[in-house]
């Protein structure tokens, strides 16, 4: 089975080395690809110095466009499974093997690594948890499914969903709305408990100023996804 780890990275010069070294140490049997979203720092130079497998976008596309590039690549190169592991070092690649096994046992189309199933590891800030709980409730209202961590980027998907994401993926803040879309299309989505780490360097893509816009945009996108 061919499995691709998609590592989106925008200005992750401070974290990318650790992320890739972790992948090479704990998931060496999987292929990985760094999607460098036209970083303005030394992300590219670091990738080239180590000879890492990287795809450098000529223009900044934002997180959604970058991750979608990974899915497009996975589709074109015939990968069976693809998993997103963020370049900021929050996701521990040691869980990948367990997630792949769990996917097969559950016959699932998507496995989300959830911080909140066992409530261990870095639990995000209080305010963010409120937002996440809100999305969780909205997903429950819209689809009738319980997803405890709808904003988790650590997601393993099969070829059916790789194809779907390669064709259509939101530009920004893609996670919660794609969960609704995937469930709506009758795919099986399950969660697997993981611990996440606090990012060590760099800055998150969601600043407080953008939070309000984020909540409104994502909620509307989820509603529209349900209406499709």
């Amino acid at each position, binding site marked *: 089975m061919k499995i691709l780890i998609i590592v989106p990275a925008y200005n992750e010069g401070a974290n990318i080395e650790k992320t890739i070294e972790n992948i090479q140490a704990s998931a060496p049997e999987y292929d990985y690809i760094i*999607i460098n979203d036209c970083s303005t720092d030394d992300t590219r130079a670091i990738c080239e110095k180590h000879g890492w497998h990287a*795809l*450098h976008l000529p*223009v900044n596309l934002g997180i959604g466009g970058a991750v*979608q590039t990974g899915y*497009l*690549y996975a589709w074109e190169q015939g990968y069976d499974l693809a998993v997103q592991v963020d370049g900021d070092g929050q996701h521990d690649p040691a869980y990948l093997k367990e997630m792949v096994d769990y996917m097969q046992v559950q016959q699932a189309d998507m496995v989300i690594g959830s911080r909140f199933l066992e409530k261990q590891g870095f639990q995000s800030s209080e305010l963010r948890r409120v937002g996440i709980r809100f999305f969780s409730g909205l997903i429950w209202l819209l689809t009738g499914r319980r997803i405890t961590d709808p904003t988790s980027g650590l997601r393993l998907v099969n070829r059916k969903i790789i194809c779907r994401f390669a064709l259509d993926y939101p*530009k920004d803040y893609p996670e919660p709305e794609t969960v609704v879309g995937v469930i709506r299309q009758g795919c099986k989505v399950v969660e697997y408990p993981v611990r996440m780490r606090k990012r060590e360097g760099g800055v998150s893509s969601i600043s407080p100023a953008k939070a309000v816009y984020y909540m409104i945009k994502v909620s509307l996108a989820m509603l529209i996804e349900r209406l499709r």
Partner: protein
Amino acid sequence: MNVRTQILIAILVLLGLAGIVRLVKKNKIQLKYALPWCFLAAAILLLALFPQGTVWLAKVSGVGQHINIIFFLGFCFLLVLIFALTMVVSGLSQKAKRAIQELGILRERLDALEKLLENEEKR
């Protein structure tokens, strides 16, 4: 509206139209995007030459003041035009995104191919 104003408006509109035609000829604007402006020019020209038209429109629509109907129609035209532009931008950004993604993937493939060739040559 006196004749002097009518002639002035007509001249301005015709100048504008000539400008648009020139830009289309030089391929600076696609005809598709110039058309709404041509229709606007035609409408202004018509109303300038036959001001009774505005009076009639104002009466029929119940607006009363005929200058208001002009403002109203102009505003509607702009709203429609801006909305059409929003749709165009949205479509363009979608296309640009896909082109950029494919370009990135092609470069990655090219790098892989070059590396492969290099290794072949070394052997």
